[in-house]
């Protein structure tokens, strides 16, 4: 379960001054559901997810993740969260096994538990062939599989994915999407950010459209289709953020 209440994040930047990356965002993600966070470049997706993963501290508002407050108990939140983003890379000089084992240890697991869990994950993700090779030589697909195993080693209740299919080929992207769906089927709370509309249609139970740091629309896919009288997710997105003009204005900034 993720509950965000009036979440706000403002950055101080030397050149650009104050940047309101996330403004007054409230939403709820339930277990067994995939919440799709939709937004253009710079909309505030990554910042929102980092707030939930306690990598950043909110300047306003609050959030609870898996029952713990992100400000009061960030370490407890992190024990229940698996965070995967394009910016969470692997240690190139470690093998996949060492990498995943390290994160098991960091999550307080003992050697036997790590070994058992790693066996399961490696079978599910078909990693046997490269488990003992160093990550620096991996293909993008192998890297992504290793990263997923890294986020899942401690079997977290909440999964946070920030554009996990970025830069992947169709086959690998499909495998990832299937895996995210699998997480939901096991009853995990999943939040998934993307700007690829087709992924939202295929994957998400609830979608939130974020624009310029604000959550401008939210609902199940059928609710959104009904509200904007559009079937196509892309059209819904354009309407929700205020039409082509708003997109053009956002691009200028």
């Amino acid at each position, binding site marked *: 379960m993720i509950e965000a209440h009036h979440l706000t994040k403002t950055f101080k930047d030397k050149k650009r001054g104050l940047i309101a990356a996330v403004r007054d965002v409230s939403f709820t993600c339930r277990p067994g559901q995939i919440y799709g966070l939709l937004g253009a470049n710079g909309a505030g997706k990554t910042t929102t997810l980092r707030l939930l993963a306690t990598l950043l501290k909110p300047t306003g508002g609050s959030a609870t993740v898996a029952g713990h407050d992100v400000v009061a108990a960030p370490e407890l939140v992190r024990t229940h969260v698996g965070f995967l983003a394009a910016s*969470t890379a692997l240690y190139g000089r470690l093998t996949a096994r060492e990498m995943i084992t390290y994160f098991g240890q960091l999550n307080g697991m003992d050697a036997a538990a790590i070994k058992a869990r790693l066996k399961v994950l490696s079978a599910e993700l078909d990693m046997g062939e490269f488990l003992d090779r160093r990550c620096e030589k991996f293909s993008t697909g192998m890297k992504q599989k290793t990263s997923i195993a890294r986020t899942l080693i401690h079997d977290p209740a909440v999964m946070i994915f920030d554009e996990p299919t970025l830069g992947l080929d169709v086959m690998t992207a499909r495998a990832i999407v299937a895996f995210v769906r699998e997480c939901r089927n096991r009853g995990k709370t999943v939040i998934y950010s993307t700007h690829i509309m087709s992924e939202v249609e295929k994957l998400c139970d609830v979608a939130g459209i974020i624009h310029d740091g604000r959550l401008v629309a939210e609902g199940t896919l059928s609710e959104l289709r009904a509200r904007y009288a559009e079937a196509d997710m892309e059209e819904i997105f354009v309407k929700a953020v205020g039409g082509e003009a708003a997109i053009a204005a956002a691009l200028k900034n």
Partner: protein
Amino acid sequence: MNWRNLTTVYLKELRDSLRDRRTLLSTIIIPTLVIPLMVFGVGKVMSKVMSQAQGDSSPIMIVGGEDSPGIVAALKAERDPAKNRPVFRVVPTGDYRTAIGDKKIRAAVEIPTGFEAALKTGDAPTVTIFYYEGEIKSGLGQRALEKFFTDLRQKTAEKRLTEHNLPVSLLKPFEVKRKNAAPPEKVGGNLVGGFVPYLIIILCFTGAMYPAMDLTAGEKERGTMETLLCSPVPRVDIVLGKFLMVLTGSVSAMVFMLLSMGTTAFVGGSIMTGSGTTLKVGAAAAKTTVDVMPTVDPMGLFGVLAMVLPVAVLFAAAAFTISLFAKSYKEAQSYLAPMMIVVIMPAVIGMLPGIDLNVKLAFVPILNLSLVCKEMLSGIWHWDLIAIIFGSSSLYAAIALMLAVKMFNREDVMFRA
């Protein structure tokens, strides 16, 4: 703080660093090779150049001396019996100043008009020797000329005494003899004390530098920092685990240098005492003739190790904090390179003769270490100053470490856009 977390982070960083070529180079390979290279490499080259220079006849010019053919002939005929060759190679007279400057000749001697005649009449003419101050080969030529003319003066004086039926011993009413009174380990301390602290300080810093950059800015650049921050481990444990690895780099650089120094001294001991080129690397060392093999007081060495520890902590924490601020390995390098000068300067000042430890200097980081090491290696123990140095260095180290933890908790440092 949790020891289990800390150890997990530390062991991972240790394994990771042992697979990094740059870190291995700066923490193990260079420290191991630097001393043998300096002693056997530079020392050998230097003594080779020296003996070669001493082996050749000195090219010189004679200015004037047309009416003193006897002296000129004697100069040309002067032989070095030990090396069985002429001492001088007389070059036809020309512009001697330019020739010395261009290193065509080593020195020139001006023989005044009527020199030979003056020797007979008992006048006191002046012979002038021209040379290039500070140039080794020119110095050799100048010394050879000076020896020739002082010998001549001696002989002339003796001749005059015998002519007047006086004993030659009048010239030498007493003898002067020189003998080393310092115990061998103190000689060693002074010779070694000059540059060992200097080397230790530099290696401690370079040993900390590469792991520090790799574990902070390097991780940010490669995108693994965010992955690590996703783990539930408290930030303090991550900082301390990483810091411990940086400290390991610093200490290992020092330990490997000292080990290789011990081995070098052991293996090369006989060679070094034999040729007398022992530790010519230390500037003033060359002039001292050592009639005993210099040994280093092992207590002094232990003292040095103990004193270096807080400074290694300081270096590790400082290098860690500074490179934490950088976004990339390159940026970290550009911050740490100028730091190198800040580190070397006090170390060099400490090497200079004549600067001695006092209460005020005991508070100056790095310089205090360099000075106290020099003292300890030559068997001097100022316990009050040692306490001040250990205390102040530890305090600086603690401050630097606190700063590192603080930086690690700053979002704008960890997630610089």
